[in-house]
């Protein structure tokens, strides 16, 4: 899936998979927080940027 994203010019690091059990709530929250921060640092996807451009 990461390779497919790369063919579209989308950074493969925008996709990650984690294996967690239902008992790992704190770890889940930590992963979500870290990933959201990471995505914010990446900025908009090329798709979002293209859509914004079209709306202008």
């Amino acid at each position: 899936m990461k390779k497919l994203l790369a063919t579209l010019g989308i950074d493969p690091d925008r996709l990650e998979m984690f294996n967690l059990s239902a008992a790992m709530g704190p770890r889940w929250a930590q992963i979500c927080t870290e990933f959201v921060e990471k995505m914010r640092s990446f900025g908009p996807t090329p798709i979002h940027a293209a859509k914004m451009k079209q709306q202008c």
Partner: protein
Amino acid sequence: MIVGSQKPFPELWEMVQGFKKVLVLGCNTCVAICHAGGGKEAEIIAAMLRMKAAEDGVALETDHDAVQRQCEPEYFDPLMEKLRGYDLVISTACGVGVNFLSKLIGATPVYPGVNTSFYGAVPAAGVFVELCAGCGNCILHLTGGICPIARCSKSLMNGPCGGTDKGKCEVSKDIDCAWYLIVERMKELGTLARLGEIQPPRNWATARDGGPKRIVLEHIADLEEAEAKK
């Protein structure tokens, strides 16, 4: 089973140019097993086409669907009207499915989403190997169950060529020499002496050289015809 691999995305993107409404249609038998063209892969291709269209600012509507087998007409019956509502159908079945649907669907074009590769087996998860060439004249009983036509790079019928090297083929060290395997297997079976028997020249007319092949089971085809007339 029939083994294929998904076409590179740039080729698929090139195919849809000029079309506005595209359906990616998976086949949930052979090509689903090899992760090339089942319902899941059809959904992924449709999503990728949508994403690329959004990136490039192109108006393109894509959907996905799948049938159990694209090589038999009854599986298309519930879908045929829907299929005709699209400008283009990308079939991720093997080439058989693409040919077959092209004939059934009428004016809508059907393009291939998969490169059909070979008849093969799955020795381990994610690994697919060619074992049969569908030549129409099986000689596996004479070669220890190992096909020299599919598994020898030169399809040699009379033993290994000079390129065999410690059980490997000169084409690639990743390819086993089929004749090495045949000899070892026949030794194991105690039938090696059979390789000394002179075989007549092979009739290749049963393979591609004889043109497109057709098999008709009259006892079944006649029944179907009679049922259809009722």
